């Protein structure tokens, strides 16, 4: 199992090196063992460097940069070990438009090997979905499914 872990670590690190610059439009990231001499117990560090920036400690990244870096790590894992399905609840909320576009482009890759169930308020993410489910709460506070036509969709306006 030790050999398997180290090989997974290397593979995910390789994918991260590909995925991170796509999401961040540049920059780099890598995985590193906290203590190389104890491969069986050591924790794993994620080192990220957004484009044009010095390697800052993770806490100094912005809200949007943290979310995007986390997605890069998760996508790198999904590409090595595709999961039958992935569920994401408003992961795109902190992202600006340019980062949302890059995120959506990568989703198109991931969806080839996994089904994706996504809760979102973002119109561009809705546009790339194969199926759109609208959920509303009627006057008696019971959730119901409504069909949504993207042309006239205004989040928050579906009063029942």
């Amino acid at each position, binding site marked *: *199992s030790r050999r*398997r*872990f180290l*090989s*997974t*670590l290397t593979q995910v690190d390789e994918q991260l090196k590909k995925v991170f610059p796509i999401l961040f439009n540049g920059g780099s990231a890598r*995985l590193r063992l*906290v203590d190389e001499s104890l491969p069986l117990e050591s*924790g*794993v*560090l*994620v080192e*990220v460097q957004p484009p044009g920036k010095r390697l800052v400690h*993770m*806490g100094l990244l912005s*809200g949007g940069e*943290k*979310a995007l*870096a*986390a997605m890069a*790590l*998760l996508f790198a*894992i999904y590409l*090595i*070990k595709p*999961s*039958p*399905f*992935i*569920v994401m*609840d*408003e992961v795109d909320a902190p992202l600006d438009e340019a980062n949302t576009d890059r995120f959506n482009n990568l989703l198109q890759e991931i*969806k080839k090997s996994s*089904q*994706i*169930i*996504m*809760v*979102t308020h973002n119109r561009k993410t*809705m546009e790339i*979905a*194969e*199926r*759109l*489910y609208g*959920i*509303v*709460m009627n006057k*008696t*506070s*019971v*959730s*119901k*499914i409504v069909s*949504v036509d993207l042309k006239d*969709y205004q*989040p*928050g*306006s*579906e009063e029942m």
Partner: protein
Amino acid sequence: MRTKNLSLRGFKSFMDKSSFQIPPGISAFVGPNGCGKSNVVDAIRWVMGEQSPKQLRGRQMEDVIFSGAGSLKPLGMAEVTLTLEDTEELYGTSEVSVTRRLYRSNESEYLINNSPCRLKDIQDLFMGTGLGNRSYSIIAQGEIGSIIEQKPEETRRLLEEAA
């Protein structure tokens, strides 16, 4: 193996039976604040065998049963069914449906293809799909920002699950 359908009845705000076909690709759930989108995410986590009420944003497991609203009375049971297809290798049949029920009496029921089974059978089934106890296949609302700040031991655990 693919997910085919998710159906909820009496689970949180879904009092009546609600059913979602899940095609290949992306299924997006949209709607105003408080309408029940994250409850769908909780339903998926629950039917896969989740045992912690806190992971389902409740205090006790009974919080998942429709608690009534306005003139509507609370229900006595919550039920979620997840149907998978192309499962010959996994289970010998072309389709497998996994059902979980909870009664107000706190009694639980687990079923595979409509016949009663144990929680362990459901957990084993999902282990085989590669889903297993993968904590990173379901990302809850607000969780994405904290993944990068988690301790190195937690990042290691994430990688071990994928190994």
